[in-house]
């Protein structure tokens, strides 16, 4: 996870964003890759008789997932709420801070080096500490770690977007005698939107990681991370893998939801409106 870049150029688009809202023919290559990968996985494990504690068969994981879907869903929902609220709080605060730093440059110049340095800190290492600050059983211990995780990529990207406005566009607003509020509302924020969404998408991935890993350090019994850890400890690998699958599905859902909102919001960007 340390390789996740916190600043990513909004264009060109690709990957998952391209998958949202495209036709069947665009989905087909990805579906073929998926089917081939699962097939190889299943086939190789059968062919070489790989032990289940190393890697269970996809069919075994899928069966376990289906059989325990009730518990998995309630555990997943518990953890997803931590990830979601942490994402909302962290990202919301990040956007507010970026607005303040962009409006008052002196403040921005004073804080930016620390913000960039702080974004390189492995924040997940603080999870045991937040478990002490709040109760490990309480959602707020995970929400706080997720919020801090989400804060930096969103803040850095938003600030980059707010300050990467064409200087001519600002001169133009000045020629209309527009005030700072108008300049932010009509130029800086629209310019920053693609950057903000890039930051938000990075944050969605971090949010699910933060919540699950935070639970590895202790959490409520009905939490997904706690369940994955316990199953792995007692050699119930199929159950552990089913939990991981649930975490993946929830993480991807959050990402796709943000990507869908991005597509609706940024209709004016040439590459999203075709």
């Amino acid at each position: 996870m340390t390789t996740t870049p916190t600043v990513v150029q909004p264009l060109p688009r690709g990957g998952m964003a391209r998958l949202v809202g495209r036709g069947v023919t665009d989905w087909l290559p990805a579906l073929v890759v998926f089917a081939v990968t699962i097939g190889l996985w299943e086939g190789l494990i059968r062919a070489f008789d790989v032990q289940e504690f190393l890697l269970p068969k996809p069919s075994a994981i899928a069966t376990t997932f289906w059989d325990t879907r009730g518990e998995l869903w309630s555990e997943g929902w518990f953890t997803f709420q931590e990830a979601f609220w942490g994402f909302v709080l962290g990202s919301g605060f990040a956007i507010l801070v970026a607005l303040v730093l962009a409006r008052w440059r002196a403040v921005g110049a004073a804080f930016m080096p620390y913000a960039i340095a702080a974004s390189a800190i492995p924040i997940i290492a603080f999870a045991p500490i937040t478990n002490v600050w709040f109760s490990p059983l309480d959602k707020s211990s995970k929400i706080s770690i997720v919020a801090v995780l989400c804060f930096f990529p969103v803040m850095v990207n938003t600030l980059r977007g707010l300050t990467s406005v064409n200087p001519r566009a600002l001169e133009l607003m000045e020629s209309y005698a527009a005030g700072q509020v108008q300049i932010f509302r009509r130029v800086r924020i629209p310019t920053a939107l693609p950057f903000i969404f890039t930051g938000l998408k990075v944050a969605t991935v971090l949010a699910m990681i933060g919540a699950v890993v935070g639970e590895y350090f202790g959490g409520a019994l009905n939490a997904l991370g706690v369940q994955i850890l316990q199953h792995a400890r007692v050699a119930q690998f199929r159950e552990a893998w089913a939990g991981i699958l649930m975490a993946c599905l929830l993480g991807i859902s959050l990402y796709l939801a943000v990507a869908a909102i991005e597509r609706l919001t940024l209709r004016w960007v040439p590459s999203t409106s075709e």
Partner: protein
Amino acid sequence: MSVVEIKDLTKRFDETTALQGIDLEIEPGEFVSLIGPSGCGKSTLLRIIGDLIQPTSGTASVNGKPARQARIDHDYGIVFQDAVLYDWRTVGKNIALPLELARWNRRRRVAKVNEMLDLVELTGFENHHPWQLSGGMQQRVAIARALSFDPSLLLMDEPFGALDEMTRERMNMELLRIWEASRSTVVFVTHSIAEAVFLSTRVVVMSPRPGRISSVITVDLPQPRTATTREEPRFFELVTDVREALHLGHDMEKTPA
């Protein structure tokens, strides 16, 4: 009353003197070009008139008011080399932006946008996005936006510099037609001698280090200018005059004072 009045104006950026001893008066309805090599301060002078840069000393007034007050009163519209259209706004909404800032109501805005689209011959494109238009069309939108609130003065900073020669000549004709129709005063920064002579009623020749006005040439070509104006002997004489004035300014630079 002059539209633009500049008196003994100086602008220094740190060590370099960008403009020195500038005096210039521009009358209503004039089309004045500022021409000179890079570094002669022509764009700086344009920005001082628009109150986007402050002079070090001297005064710039527009319509008899300090430049700052004129900017607040929306006395001028400005067009840059890039169209600087806002990608998230349609063509119509780009043109309406200054009207929104001036708190025009929706009905008046729509009427005015239609009038401006008609003026720059882009009727039917109001719901297009800027990236769907060619460079010349984008620049016409920028001109429509600059004129939407009926400013008495139009400031243009090399507006056609990024266009190819054919488009540029067509845009020159367009601009003269718009100038005629809107009865505004134009201050036009350019690198092109032929463009300056073809468009202007007066050409202000500037020279660099320090930036100053080296000569002012009145263009006595008959109005309205047409495609054949560029082929008249008088056009070539004036082009030669401006070229010689530019070289004279350049030689002055080399001679030690």
